[in-house]
């Protein structure tokens, strides 16, 4: 499964492009329309965090096969300031920007698997998976 899309995030327009690319890659598999929307929404929130907290970064959407299941993997990567307290950042309502603090916990609820790696000063990588039924 070769499909992979890499989208640079550097402006608000790129957020729209990222979620559309994600939807296109995921549409190759037999996702329901509801799942496609969920994937697009998750990508939108991660792209938004890159743009808001790191300024620039990238989203890579690809197909993956594991244990006979097919799914889509989303990697959101930036070299920004990093997340100071990951446990806090995953709590509903925690925000350092006076926003709703729903992005990361919401994305975690939307997708099947969620990983975050981040260190202050070293950037952030969030990886998500959604498996096709």
């Amino acid at each position, binding site marked *: 499964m070769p499909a992979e899309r890499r989208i640079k995030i550097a402006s608000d327009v790129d957020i729209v492009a990222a979620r559309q690319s994600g939807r296109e890659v995921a549409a190759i598999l037999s996702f329901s329309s*509801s799942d496609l*929307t969920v994937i697009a929404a998750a990508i939108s*929130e991660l792209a938004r965090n890159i743009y808001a907290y790191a300024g620039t970064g990238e989203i890579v959407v690809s197909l993956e096969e594991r244990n006979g299941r097919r799914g889509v993997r989303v990697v959101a990567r930036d070299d920004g300031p990093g997340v100071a307290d990951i446990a806090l950042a995953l709590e509903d309502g925690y925000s350092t920007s006076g926003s709703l603090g729903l992005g990361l916990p*919401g994305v975690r*609820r939307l997708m099947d698997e969620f990983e975050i790696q981040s260190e202050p000063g070293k950037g952030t990588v969030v990886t998500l998976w959604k498996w096709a039924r």
Partner: protein
Amino acid sequence: MLVPILKQGDYLIASIQSSLADADLIRLRDQLVEQVGRYRSRGVIVDVTVLDVMDSFAVRTLSTLAQMIMLRGAETVIVGVQPDVAFAMVQLGLTLDNVKTALDLEEGLLYLNSRAKRGRSGAG
């Protein structure tokens, strides 16, 4: 992408035609807030039927739009939130509290008309 704003009687109807970048949505908000004054409109309908995703920014901007319109003395109805979009919003924890929503444009107009009638009989 420009969002066309139609003036229909006492109402303004904004029909979003494609996905919008953040700046487009902010521009729509500001145009509606301005035009409510220029046309002395009583109601605003924002049709989001074509939006395939409503993320935190979109929801926050629509809430702010509705509040600003309210402060200008008119009422906003958001119409056309699709089932998949509603599902993703709920999972994300996004709500449109304090904002009137309706199924589609027709229902939105019915709602505003019923409010207008009640307003008139209340005054008389």
